């Protein structure tokens, strides 16, 4: 499998230093994505899912010092320690990005056509007229109605769904091998969300692009991803195929999240199922399991030692002392 992996992240840690604090939002995370495959990274706000994807690309707020350790092999190239000019060639080139809020990610003062053409000029070395033609093709590819007119429009003239389509057109302008989509449908309505997910799946089939989709919506995960990584407090809690993780979740956090989804079997007026407590506030790395204070299955060791991510064949890998101890006992019996 390794040879077809377009992205291989191993033991990645991200440390952020601001003038006030030192944080580790990503701690020892490993995963891989094959060409043409979709990996969903699921987590709540503050779980580190966005930093995990954007810190290695140098997309962090100014005034924050980012320190990466571990390894990120993308298309045979090591991204950790890469210089800013080298990163700039990759960003928007071999790696396209889609952000959550298209209104703040698009340039309000440039026409849509120009913003798409810019990418083609920069990364594909096209002339401006070639790039404009490519922009038109791309707008057709993302199934935008009346593409000739859209080229000349500004972002504020477009609806939310059309803006997100424009953003996708920019992201795929340089034919990236990997597309990182950070909550691409969260700001959209549910009927528009269905259209955008359909579009991403269709583009992936045609261009064989790998997609890393950052989301907190299990429905979106089920509809597009092949594999899922569940993050909690900067670490992977569970990692496996979409069927394994969504249908037979093993980590207490994942099973709690999935059990909390309202179902048609719940009577109107019946209480909602949820998780007790609140997610931890980002800070120094914890010695134990970050989920322990909210966990229904917590045992002594959970607070003292961090559970490593482990799993057997045919099941998702989980970082949980209780689940993994149970599994090794079952294997010993068998």
């Amino acid at each position, binding site marked *: 499998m390794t040879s077809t992996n377009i992205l291989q992240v191993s033991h990645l840690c991200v440390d952020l230093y601001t003038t006030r604090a030192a944080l580790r939002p990503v701690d020892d995370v490993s995963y891989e994505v094959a060409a043409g495959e979709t990996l969903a990274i699921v987590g709540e706000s503050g779980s580190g899912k966005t930093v995990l994807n954007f810190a290695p690309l140098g997309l962090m707020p100014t005034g924050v010092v980012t320190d990466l350790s571990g390894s990120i092999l993308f298309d045979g190239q090591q991204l950790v320690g890469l210089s800013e000019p080298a990163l700039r060639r990759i960003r928007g080139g071999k790696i396209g990005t889609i952000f959550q809020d298209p209104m703040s990610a698009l340039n309000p003062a440039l026409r849509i056509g120009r913003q798409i053409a810019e990418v083609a000029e920069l990364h594909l070395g096209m002339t401006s007229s070639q790039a404009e033609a490519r922009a038109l093709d791309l707008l057709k590819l993302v199934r935008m109605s009346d593409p000739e007119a859209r080229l000349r429009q500004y972002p504020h003239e477009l*609806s939310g769904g059309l803006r997100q389509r424009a953003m996708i057109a920019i992201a795929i302008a340089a034919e990236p091998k990997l597309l990182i989509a950070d909550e691409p449908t969260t700001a959209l309505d549910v009927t528009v969300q269905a259209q955008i997910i359909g579009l991403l799946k269709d583009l992936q089939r045609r261009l064989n692009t790998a997609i890393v989709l950052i989301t*907190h919506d299990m*429905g979106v995960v*089920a509809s597009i991803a092949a594999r899922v990584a569940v993050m909690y407090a900067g670490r992977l809690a569970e990692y496996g195929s979409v*069927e394994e993780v969504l249908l037979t979740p093993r980590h207490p956090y994942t099973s709690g999240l999935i059990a*909390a989804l309202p179902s*048609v079997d719940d009577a109107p007026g*019946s209480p*909602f199922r949820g*998780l007790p407590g609140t997610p931890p506030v980002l800070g120094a790395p914890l010695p134990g399991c970050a989920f322990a204070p909210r966990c229904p299955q917590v045992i002594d060791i959970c607070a003292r030692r961090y559970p490593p991510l482990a799993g057997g064949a045919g099941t998702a890998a989980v970082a949980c002392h209780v689940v993994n101890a149970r599994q090794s006992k079952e294997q010993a019996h068998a």
Partner: protein
Amino acid sequence: MREAGDLLRVENLVTRFKSVERGKWVTAVDDVSIRLAPGEMVGLVGESGCGKSTLGRSIVGLERPQSGRILLDGVDLSSLRGRELREKRRAIQYVFQDPYASLNDRQTIGETLTEALIIIGVKDREAQRRRIHTLLDQVGLPDALAERYPRELSGGQRQRVAIARSLAVEPRVLICDEPVSALDLSIRAQVMNLFLTLHKDLGVACLFIAHDLALVRQATSRTYVMYLGKIVEDASSAELYARPSHPYTQALLGSIPSADPRVEAHREPPPIFGDIPSPTNPPSGCRFRTRCPRAMEVCASHPPARLALAPDHHASCVIAAELYAHSHPAPHRLPMPA
């Protein structure tokens, strides 16, 4: 129908805004009528831009309606002025979507709540303290939080404070505008359960404005579906989800992805086109016709009448009766969308 006993009635309400285009108007709420019985939990769902928040804001007086009536206990609020209006309107309180923006950064939680208490005339310090204790207790927050500032609180805690503040004036109706959509998944259930408890213990009626259909189905007994300024369908929540009879409601329910990958692998998205049109220039006739898979010629010429499909189920669509006859329970479980 408990028409006589309705706590809140909104009749033919129209709220419009001046458009950026000179001389044009945006009719955000167009001839909307809804009702709320005492202690009832009612949902109002629709996509962004459909006017659901404007309707809520018009009810509490944050927007001035162009025409129509808002009746509380049978009294038309627009017939009242000054002190009388303020006192009557106090029975309706609003819970905003974003607890990061709705609380004053420079006031402690205690000060925020005290302000509400002073408005209803609780001036005695000791009485204020006791009431704040009760309020914080009702929303499940420790007493010590009264000394804290909003920035020290998590999103879930802030939303609880916002709820406590609206409860301080002993309202009979809460208008909750997307009260949990700014909160994390694992926290949502906690705040939703708080609403259910308050409803049970205090008998507060709630108008629950949300785009999250699964949430509304479980929390409310009746639901209104709004599209581009109009109510297109209303029914008991169980019936609405089991037998949606307006093409828009069907598309809305059909667009929610299931959390089951086996269901998703075989599911075709509903045939709904494009985005919600601009309310500056809504389509003629039925407003949904530009996105409707079943649109016919007649849809462009006449706005559809509101048809009664069952005693408590109405839909504004020319083929509503046919859709009702053929509707069947939703094919999959509803997950909690973003």
